[in-house]
């Protein structure tokens, strides 16, 4: 009997102990986590409240932290800290480029250690990491609603100040305050193989959709190359077609963020070979006329780089960021060229240009980390040569344009203007509501163009009518005034 009691007691003791151990363990690790992520900064619970975020903003301003006030090599040289950078450029981590940028940075700021974490599925994962709060000090801002920017990110300064120093400053702006600095800028055009175009007998770069389709046909007739490689299977390469419907197709810097929301049937045929209709029709016609690869469902994104380099592909519709990758993918880098999208608006050609991912700084980081992070962002923008190396439009106002823009002589770059105050979130809402997701991952809608063109089960006008319908009903649900 006694033995049993002793046994029962010891068992109970063991159980309680193990439970206590569990609890202790988890709370301890939680504490370590918070230490890592926020150092001695504001406790995590306060982050969700806008009021507190505003407070953080005040302290940041009080301490004089702003993008324009930082003088590289002089400001904040006394800070010793470690900052963590969450990036989408896993390719640059693998190639060691990021390490060499950081090594260069450490020559000026030896006491700031930069840790990098690459995220492959960035657009989705970054959003989840952002809500969890545990992501480090610098991140490439994912698709957040603009009114939430001040809850998550440190302001760089007012728009009027920052826009004097960098291009595309208004991309992540809310209430005239800038929350993101672009890493590089992209112009939208078509990457093509000059040798193939020459071989096909194309002497002048096509300027209209008709000329472009004729050029593709010439490539098909006169060479062995695939005229237009769609990269259907990769998905995001399809969504990239949305980037042409603004500046390139309309010549208007207001189209994307200000006019599109209020447009009645934006996918209608404007009759003059412009607007979204003309952009997507190029794709539909190319597919319908058999001017793309044989089996679009098994395209290979990594493989296409070498293929265009060696002359197996005539052209691909991709942003300027793709140019350097195509040049480096083989021995015939000199053959790669970049041209504007073949749409002419009123006798003049335009090219959409815009920022790539923007650097955002964690509002919950310690003051030292905020300052160190902003120094790093400014260094990346002005000193690293990152945008130039990527073949991008320079971010720093006095930066240099890379050579690939040679063919853009006489073509005007059009960067989107931000939304009108009070309408910042409407485009996001319309996108989600209509499920067209223009410029925000609407890959499947562009894929459906290819499918319908290949199967011949829907005409192009029917597809566009369907999209117009979705857009109109979204406008009604969200309650947007339709003016034109």
């Amino acid at each position: 009997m006694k033995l049993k009691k002793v046994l029962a007691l010891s068992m109970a003791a063991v159980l309680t102990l193990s439970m206590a151990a569990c609890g202790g363990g988890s709370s301890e690790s939680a504490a370590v986590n918070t230490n890592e992520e926020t150092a001695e900064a504001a406790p995590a619970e306060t982050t969700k409240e806008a009021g507190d975020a505003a407070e953080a903003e005040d302290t940041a301003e009080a301490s004089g932290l702003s993008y324009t006030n930082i003088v590289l090599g002089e400001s904040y040289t006394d800070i010793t800290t470690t900052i963590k950078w969450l990036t989408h450029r896993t390719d640059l981590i693998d190639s060691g480029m990021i390490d060499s940028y950081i090594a260069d940075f450490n020559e000026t700021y030896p006491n700031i250690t930069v840790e990098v974490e690459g995220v492959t599925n960035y657009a989705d994962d970054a959003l989840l990491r952002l809500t969890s709060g545990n992501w480090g000090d610098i991140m490439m801002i994912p698709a957040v609603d603009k009114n939430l920017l001040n809850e998550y990110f440190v302001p760089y300064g007012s728009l009027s100040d920052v826009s004097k120093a960098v291009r595309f400053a208004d991309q992540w702006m809310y209430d005239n305050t800038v929350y993101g600095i672009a890493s590089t800028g992209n112009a939208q055009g078509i990457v093509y193989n000059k040798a193939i175009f020459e071989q096909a007998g194309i002497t002048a770069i096509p300027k209209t959709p008709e000329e472009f389709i004729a050029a593709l046909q010439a490539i098909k007739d006169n060479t062995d190359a695939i005229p237009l490689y769609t990269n259907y299977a990769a998905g995001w390469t399809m969504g990239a077609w949305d980037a042409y419907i603004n500046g390139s197709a309309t010549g208007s810097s207001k189209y994307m963020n200000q006019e599109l929301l209020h447009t009645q049937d934006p996918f209608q045929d404007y009759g003059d070979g412009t607007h979204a209709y003309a952009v997507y029709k190029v794709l539909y016609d190319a597919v319908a006329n058999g001017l793309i690869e044989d089996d679009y469902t098994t395209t290979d994104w990594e493989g296409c780089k070498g293929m265009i380099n060696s002359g197996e592909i005539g052209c691909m519709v991709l942003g300027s960021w793709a140019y350097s990758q195509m040049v480096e993918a083989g021995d015939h880098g000199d053959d790669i060229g970049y041209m504007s999208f073949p749409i002419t608006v009123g006798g003049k050609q335009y090219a959409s240009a815009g920022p790539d991912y923007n650097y955002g700084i964690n509002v919950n980081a310690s003051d030292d980390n905020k300052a160190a992070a902003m120094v790093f962002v400014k260094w990346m923008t002005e000193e690293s040569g990152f945008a130039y190396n990527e073949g991008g439009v320079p971010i720093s106002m006095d930066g240099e344009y890379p050579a690939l823009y040679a063919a853009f002589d006489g073509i005007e770059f059009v960067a989107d203007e931000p939304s009108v105050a009070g309408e910042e979130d409407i485009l996001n809402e319309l996108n989600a509501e209509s499920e067209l997701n223009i410029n925000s991952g609407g890959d499947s809608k562009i894929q459906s163009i290819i499918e319908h063109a290949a199967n011949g089960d829907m005409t192009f006008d029917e597809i566009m009518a369907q999209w117009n319908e979705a857009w109109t009903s979204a406008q009604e649900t969200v309650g947007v005034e339709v003016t034109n």
Partner: protein
Amino acid sequence: MSAAAEQVVQTKEKKPFHFLKWAKGRKGQQTIIIVAFMFIPLLLLFTFTYFPFAEMFKFSFYKMKYIGPRKFVGLDNYIQVFKRDDCFGALKLSLYYIGGAMVQLAIALYLATILSFKVKGGSIFKGFMFFPYLISGIAIGFIFKFFYTRGFVFDTVLQWCGFELENLPYWLKDQRINNISLVATSVWRYFGQNMVLFIGAIMSVDAELYEAAELDGANKFQQFRYIILPSIKTIVTLNVILSITGSLSAFDPPYVITKGGNGTGTYFVIMNEIAHVSQKVGLASAMAVVLLIIIFIATILQKLFFKYAMRDAEDENTGAGLRREKKLERYRNRRKGAA
């Protein structure tokens, strides 16, 4: 309430309840131990299964994104699920997967029966056929993406067999067959696992029965039909139910191989797109709840079906069963006599 019942209640109330006494007693100890041991598993089950599910159920009544404000919309999301073409259209694709599941079970049952008799190199074959189940679904997706690419593995093998490349279809592009191509990958992956389950069940069949059947002149097929199948019907039923519910929620092959494009978007793939690209979290949650209900209904229907089907089969064979018993009895007696 009758007076007698009241009396009982009163007498019960008269006996005061001593917690300590109860806790020290045998019954109390039993209860305490049971509760103590159940507490942790139940807590884990609740926190990681039922609580998230309840949250999702709650989401399905809201119009919301992952971040930002939420708006209560009542049953709107559910109405949307039933109104949209893509949600229930996607369920039609499940028919392909259900068909595939049937083929898969037939292959598995056939191979399991063969392999449970003495076969040269049986273990090696079992190993080879079970192997695909051990590969992750994502890896299988990548394997088959290349497998089906025009002019790659599959086409090459078929060309060896004398097919002309021009006559071969595009396995993933042609909308008439691309779903079959995808289903084939899932059959390839899972039939080995079903086979191993069946072999395990067949092992438990008494070997004397085969001997007896052989003496009676039953061939292998008759042995399968009248001995093996009735003995393993429980595991067959279970596998059918699991395969059909699995077919309703097919995700890996279309998501990895075609990303749901080109008419291969199953219910889950569409749900994923709605939740993560369009960020209609409420609608996606409603879709999940609707699918759960559909799976419940499908499972219950199958259970009922098998209850009837199996009972009928037994009714038919009661005579046969009795005869079999008698024969066995006679056989045993003869053996006894011989000894």
